[in-house]
């Protein structure tokens, strides 16, 4: 991300917009600047702010006069008056920041199949997490903190030692050079992103071990982690995982609940079903 210094009028609106706190007003130059190391290329400043096309020189003059008179501005807080943000072409490894941080940009150049996954949202069709299994989404950096891949690797390596199964369609798994060790590509380790999700699956008897491990690793890595933990219901009820979480003392107020309305409808899937039936 770039702030066009010829356009910026240092109004400061973008400072609060940035989820990473990477934008600041350089008072010596009277322009907003981006701390490139802190910026995760999420695009919130560029996409999330509305813009006007005002003349920068005129705005600066008005601001100067108002400042002199101690007038307080009350502009709309999500507007860049001159459209000063510009999205620059990114290359790897910096491109990986955008892939994992901007929710509306897709890039096929790295071979990663998107950032998000279907998790158990399509479990009624995919049966990704089956009876007796537990799925985990271990999310790093969100809200508002960010994470470096080196810290994610610390977790994936620790999980790999416990023999967990990494979800093969997950973007982080795609970045592993070895799923047996949890090693990630070395060229991206120092890159910072807004968030990432490691997805694994275990047997029900491994839940305590995994959750303890996540907490233990989190002590060593400087970010925030939040875990989603999923299971398949039997006859509409979860009689196994919820009681276990209660026993372990975990609080879980919120859930994403798959209502079981999905089914395979693609032609190839229907043919496959027919073949199995006959």
């Amino acid at each position: 991300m770039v702030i066009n210094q010829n356009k910026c009028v240092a109004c400061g609106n973008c400072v609060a917009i940035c989820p990473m706190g990477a934008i600041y007003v350089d008072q010596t130059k009277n322009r907003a600047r981006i701390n490139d190391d802190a910026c995760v290329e999420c695009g919130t400043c560029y996409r999330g702010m509305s813009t006007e096309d005002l003349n920068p020189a005129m705005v600066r003059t008005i601001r100067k006069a108002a400042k002199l008179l101690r007038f307080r501005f009350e502009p709309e807080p999500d507007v860049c008056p001159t459209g000063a943000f510009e999205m620059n072409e990114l290359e790897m490894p910096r491109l990986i920041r955008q892939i994992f941080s901007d929710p509306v940009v897709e890039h096929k150049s790295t071979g990663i199949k998107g950032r998000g996954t279907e998790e158990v949202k399509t479990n009624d069709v995919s049966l990704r997490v089956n009876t007796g299994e537990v799925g985990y989404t271990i999310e790093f950096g969100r809200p508002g903190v960010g994470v470096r891949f080196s810290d994610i690797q610390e977790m994936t390596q620790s999980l790999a030692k416990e023999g967990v199964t990494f979800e093969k369609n997950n973007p982080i798994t795609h970045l592993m050079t070895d799923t047996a060790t949890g090693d990630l590509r070395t060229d991206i380790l120092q890159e910072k992103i807004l968030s990432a999700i490691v997805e694994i699956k275990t047997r029900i008897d491994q839940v305590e071990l995994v959750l303890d491990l996540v907490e233990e690793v989190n002590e060593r890595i400087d970010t925030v982690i939040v875990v989603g933990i999923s299971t398949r219901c039997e006859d509409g009820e979860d009689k196994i995982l919820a009681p276990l979480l209660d026993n372990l003392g975990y609080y879980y107020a919120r859930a994403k609940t798959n209502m079981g309305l999905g089914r395979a409808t693609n032609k190839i899937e229907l043919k496959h079903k027919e073949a199995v039936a006959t």
Partner: protein
Amino acid sequence: MTNTLHRYGHSDSFRDDYIIFAIPSRGKNDEDCIPKLKEFLKICAKYNPSNMGNGNRGSVAPEKGLAPTAHWKRNESPDWDQVIEGVCKAGTVSAVFASAGQAHACLKEVIDADFGISVNVSTSVENARRAAETCGIKRHSVEYALAFNDPHDHLPNSQILGLSTMCGHGMVSFNMARKMLDMVREGRRTTQQAVTTLVRLCPCGVYNPERAKRLIEEACREQR
């Protein structure tokens, strides 16, 4: 794509927060799914949603090239048609409801429509259980949100977290949530104006303006 699991709050805090979303499964039921996703949103639009999204835009979106007069008259009306017409590829589409009644009625019609696409409800565990019971269906799978692990003390207070985490992708920064709350406290913006500003920042359209309004009002009351 949306991310609604890790909203901050206790169970009762989700009493006005129901997100119903449809998501096709790649390779399983994503063929010809776009008309179904549009139809799903059309059904949702009938039940007075608080917000809707198609993964690329919500019902209130940022505007480019505003006239200077916009500072006195911003567009705050949700545009459902833009969201529905904007569905152009297989992905998550969603609607946010502020009451159980609306959510249940919508879910019932979605069940009757029988799209064959996975439908999820993101709310409190209890709310979802009740929704399934009311609509006469059995839950297939459930993903619980465990609490945030924050051993290094990065996270702000619960008021800011409540407002910020309603954009699960983190596009509503802590600083912006704090700024809007402060602007309301200082009488520089109405609650509605502050909420609309936050809603615009969430590109997936899952930010819940009704809950945000309540959280801001509660935060202002606590101060008095």
